[in-house]
């Protein structure tokens, strides 16, 4: 019954056998043990499960794992390079953009997508970019500050 698939996650190729009904988030968390990607709802609302699929932010709770066959996926664990925080991670820390941190991986990946398309987002752009990411702790204010800081940090890059 299981289906074979290949997927590159954070630069590493995995050959897997998955149940057809397995969700992408389950594959990431349960098969690959990358538990930085979270689940917060069952209706594609909260974005705690956000990963990048071929560079685009997607809600991994709303895709089957098999749909990612052949794709390249980035999860929060793939953001740092050689132990060095990504500028977005640094900005979230510096701007107190997190409290419990449950939403943070998703928010950072949505930010990464935004900043890869728009180097100088204004407040509206930023709010739109995270419209699909629920945070219950921060009230978003420091998240927006962090996004702004990340944009600044990455300008040179």
């Amino acid at each position: 019954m299981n289906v074979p698939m290949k997927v590159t996650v954070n630069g590493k190729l995995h050959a897997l056998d998955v149940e057809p009904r397995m969700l992408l988030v389950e594959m990431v968390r349960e098969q690959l043990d990358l538990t930085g990607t979270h689940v917060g709802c069952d209706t594609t609302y909260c974005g705690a499960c956000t990963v990048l699929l071929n560079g685009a932010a997607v809600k991994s709770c709303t895709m089957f794992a098999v749909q990612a066959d052949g794709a390249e996926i980035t999860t929060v664990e793939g953001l740092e390079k050689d132990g060095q925080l990504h500028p977005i991670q640094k900005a979230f820390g510096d701007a107190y953009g997190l409290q419990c941190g449950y939403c943070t991986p998703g928010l950072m990946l949505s930010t990464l997508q935004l900043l890869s398309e728009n180097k100088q987002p204004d407040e509206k752009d930023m709010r739109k970019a995270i419209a699909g990411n629920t945070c219950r702790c921060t009230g978003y204010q420091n998240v927006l500050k962090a996004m702004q800081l990340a944009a600044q940090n990455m300008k040179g890059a």
Partner: protein
Amino acid sequence: MSSSNGKDAKNWVGQALPRKEENRLLRGRGRFSDDIKLREMLYLRFVRSPYAHAKIVGVDTSTAEKLSGVACALTGAEIVSQTQPFIEIGPDPFARIKDYPLAAAKVRYQGEPVAAVVAESAALADDAAELVQVEYEALDPVIDAEEALENQSLLHDEAGTNLVWNGVFEYGDVAKAFKEAAHVVTIDRMHFHRFSSTPLENNVVIARWDPKDERIYYQCNNSFPSFAIQFLAAHLQVHIDRIRVETSDIGGSFGIKITSYPQMAVCALASKKAGGRPVKWVETRSEHLTSSAHGNERIFRETRVALDKNGVITAITSRHIDDCGAYPRYEPLGCVIWSQVFPGVYRFKNARIDFSQAVTNKCPVGPNRGYSRMQHLWFLERIVDVCAHKLGIAPDEMRLRNYVRPEEFPYTTPNGCIYDSGNYPRMLQLAKQKIGWDDWKKKQATARKEGRLIGIGIGTTLDSGTNNFGQSQIVNPGLPYSGNSQGANCKLDIYGEVVVAVGSCPQGQGHETTAAQVVADVLNIHPDMVTVRTGFDTERNVHTGFSGTYASQFAVSGLSAVHGAAQKLKAEMKRLGAFVLETKEADVEFGTGAQGPELIAKSSGKSINYWGLANIVNANSASLPEELYELTLNCRYIWRAPFKVPDKQKKYGNLTMTYASQLHIAVIEVERDTFIPRILDYAAIDDCGTVINPPIVEGQVYGATAHGIGAALMENCVYDAVGNMLTSTFSDYTPITAMNMPHVKYGHISTPSPHSYSGAKGMGEGGAAPVHTISAALQDALFDEGVFIDDSFNNADSLFRALVGKEISQMEKLVKVEKR
């Protein structure tokens, strides 16, 4: 606070220190309960009732159990035969009800669990749950609390009534105040709606009932574990020391995760039945929204307000009916907890509140951010606000006339609570400045002429922190609880590391950081040199009966415990240091040298580092003289709040240690064509006394503000007439997003608390300031339209019904003013 060598210039407390928690959380390396996988782990799924009220005729799990990969199933009947019903906090007759974690004879709310299945994978458990057959016989549901009190349909036959609790809180001379009043305002009915601050991470339990040592091991995200184990031990009939609870990173709680002990019980029993294999339950969002816990809903009836000729309130009487859902569980504590803020921020001395609580066929309530006080504070804010409008007094002026005055602190309320410190007029002034009050007033006047509906509203609120559990005796004189306490341990480990453990169970409040700041100041070292244990663990032996994280208290109870433990350690280190350095204790200084943190003899310049000290006690004790054998460098300290048991008859006494305050101002426009209420501007001022870490406090204010704005405009637990919950997913419940959350103009004042060692006041719940503020702003926008904001929840639909349909919230019908 001062360190031994008087180097106060470099205090860590009060600094914007980066959070220690960040390193793991930013890297996706947090350890949330759902991240934990254990060998041989099984997965549990609940079978839940589609009915709000029904008899259970039969539960058949046989087909489910035959499915390959299913380990076992549990039913309510089985649980009844193996356990004791949960402890009831309230007095008779509700003490007689039988509350089990799986319903056995009948179900009392939609989503109530009736059975559980356990399988090799989560997906298989889902499949198996669908194969469980339950036969129901529907009963009449009771959805409204006032209707419930008519006792037409009873939820709990053993109680013989739906009334959980009733008590009258009366102070001063109410009759005299009304006799002398210049104005009497009466308000027929107001309603505070049901909502949940619902954390992003759902409840998770992993339980293992080990047959070898007959102990139960929990890894979970319960936010008040010392309360949970007291309930679980009595329910499961095991020695309390046989239950170990560990928490790690928690994705928010806001009080809601206090009430996960029923699910914890089921997981343990399932593990026992499965031969001791670990059982994991991960709640889905719709389970969370239908059946974890909601905030208390409350109805305010027949409110009468006496005022003098200047609009100063002299007395209030009212009848309150609280709706606690199907089972009291943490209730009826909410029936007294509101009285921590009995007069709110106001000076009136005479009042009579007749308070009742009823069960209804809805999800049980639990402590929800602002627990039980926000309902009451909203009620008072509505009174002050509507009286101002009705008497033609400017709402800001009305508040100034009624506020407790800065020079009156510490202020004793009519019911004996002691407000430690505050300055409400200064907060109002600062908030007006932040928002540009005069400017908005002008803009509002112009907009009004164009027919636009713009309102400016003020909300003043309290965040009372660190409970006196003695107040529980006001609801039930037989309860053995009073005071408050917290434990902490501070030690030098064998290699000299400073390690701190505390009985809190943080969910994003940065306890690891603030605890390190406190210890760093005591020992005069850098906070990076202090390791603070993550999460809670009964095995650390630092918990008391009240340990957990709830009720805005860490800055007071948690940090006082940490401070006490650090002081104890410091005293021991000093004694040992004096011996080693061959000098007097007074000569020993704490500092950091080339070999890390150390103790130095001022007179000789000799020093010993922490490793050296720890080594003598732990591994090199032959050099230790006998009189120093009592030194352990492993110091446990229990902090106790200086409370007395309140007078149960008079319902009088100090119920809380600190009173942080918040003052918000909102500018709102109700769109004429869509009726959508839009926030145009928002300011929030906070006063939590001495601040331990400013950005952490600021973050808590933003978060609480978002919860309040969400609650006021978007988030509502809606039930239909037969008890179907209509907002059981995020798509229906619509938690506030970055698209709806306005930018908050933040300001801060500090009136240090004389009651806590550092001057800090517990904060974090925020007192639901936005709910009061938005109601006031909407009132200001719609007063001329004849609308009375009588509900804490307002969206386009309800505003349309009020403005156009004129079916609800009509000022004329609901509010009367009698001028004498």
